[in-house]
């Protein structure tokens, strides 16, 4: 990481600690904000958060590794999460998944070369009455068909 990038990130994390406080209970909200902006939480960010919250960096890593929506590995600018749980599965998840994979040329668990999209499966997103469903970042899309899903994905920048 460049020194300048580090400085920016450091400043950003200091601001987050100002907003959420430096108690342990502020840890997850701080990580969620970093995740949202940078799409992952780098080692440097983990160390900075640990320093400001006065905990061991491994504590920060331990929390990140526990939660599915926090990541210590770089991800694409957009994260597509297709629901893999049973009602979405029975409603046609498989063909939707295949269509997305073909279109993007990557498999689930991978990121496109241009860093535009990371593709993941997720467990029940609470849209069982309108499946198959997927989340793109914070937004939810329902009643997907293979064509509709690809159309939505092609529109994201």
């Amino acid at each position: 990481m460049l020194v300048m990038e580090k400085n920016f990130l450091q400043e950003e994390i200091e601001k987050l600690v100002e907003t959420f406080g430096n108690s342990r209970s502020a840890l997850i909200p701080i990580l969620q904000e970093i995740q949202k902006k940078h799409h992952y939480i780098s080692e440097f960010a983990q160390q900075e958060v640990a320093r400001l919250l006065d905990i061991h960096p491994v504590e920060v890593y331990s929390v990140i590794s526990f939660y599915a929506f926090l990541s210590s590995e770089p991800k694409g600018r957009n994260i597509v999460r297709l629901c893999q749980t049973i009602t979405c599965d029975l409603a046609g998840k498989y063909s939707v998944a295949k269509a997305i994979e073909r279109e993007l040329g990557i498999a689930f668990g991978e990121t496109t070369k241009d860093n535009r999209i990371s593709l993941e499966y997720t467990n029940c997103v609470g849209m069982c009455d309108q499946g198959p469903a997927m989340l793109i970042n914070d937004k939810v899309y329902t009643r997907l068909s293979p064509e509709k899903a690809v159309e939505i994905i092609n529109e994201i920048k």
Partner: protein
Amino acid sequence: MEMKKNRQGAVLFSDYTRGKSIEKVVGMPRGDVLAEVKESKLKGRGGAGFPTATKWMLTAAAVAEKKYIICNADEGEPGTFKDRVLLDEYPALVFDGMVIGGYVTGAHEGILYLRGEYSYMKKGLENYLEEMRKDNLLGVNIAGKEGFNFDINIKMGSGAYICGEETALIESLEGQRGEPRNKPPFPVNTGFMGCPTAVNNVETLAAISHIVVKGGKWYQKYGTDKSSGSKLFSVSGDCKKPGVFELPWGTTITDLLKLVDADNVKAVQVGGASGVCIPKSQFDRKLAYEDAATGGSIMIFNESRDMLHILKNFMEFFVEESCGQCTPCRIGNVKLLEGVEMIESGNYTFSYITKLKELGQSMQVASKCGLGQSSPNSFLSILENFRDEIFNNGNGGVNVR
């Protein structure tokens, strides 16, 4: 996401104006409000069915400087989406219920723990809380009651099913991995930040708002003796009208299937992946705490479905979502999934499957929290109730390996 207005229901979906229950309680002594809740016989709607009045009485009785009311909106059970509908369309019921909880227990702070998958709702809910503050339904001296201060914050989950378990939820709020705690102590004594905490399901709190306005007796009229009131059922799967339906407890599965227009039904999964799979021969069973209990999830499977495929999906779910803290759950679920895969590939012996069933029973007693205690339910019930289809050439032999 689609919105459905004008839902029909006798209790939760009946008319309600924001603040009505709060305005009523501030004129009542705490004890009277609790008595009303007790009379309603309301039980926790997350699935465990603990009496709400008892939980609140214990929290109220605990002596501490700080207490908390937590609304558990981490609904992650496959097939459940009633909390999404309540928060999206009936936020007044939920938030007013939390304020009443604060009044009764003496808590000044409420936290809505919203699952990460529902982050698209956060902004709207925050705006709603702001409106409540403007109307003096949150903040200081609420509804003109001197010294009654209460406010609600929203905290987001980050994609962990286990955080729906109340102590795991509290761990998560404290900035830790969402690993369940040993009980006792229970959260009513030692909860969030070591303070007495009542953790209630979204639907429980919504019911409270109606109970306070219309009375415990009125609420008790609905449902059965042991399961009072109504329940929101999240219905999905093979039917023409999936969605959320409010029905009194005690409704039979057959009646529910008629309501949602489901044909050729082979099985109904009651209670989500951690619930039980009920075959056609038992469709006269009642949905109630004393019979087929559920936190609301009803998934319908028709004749064309392969029950082993469904079971595999459930076991994959639990292998991913087990927090890994205790051995029966961490290893047990992996072993059960392997067993399903062995059946799938035709590479199994009946004696090994019998051993796996025993393992499932051990998990039910030896796991630390509800996840591991209930995750073998679908394994045991599907292999038992659909043994003909899976092992014995039933179903015309289509699904036999």
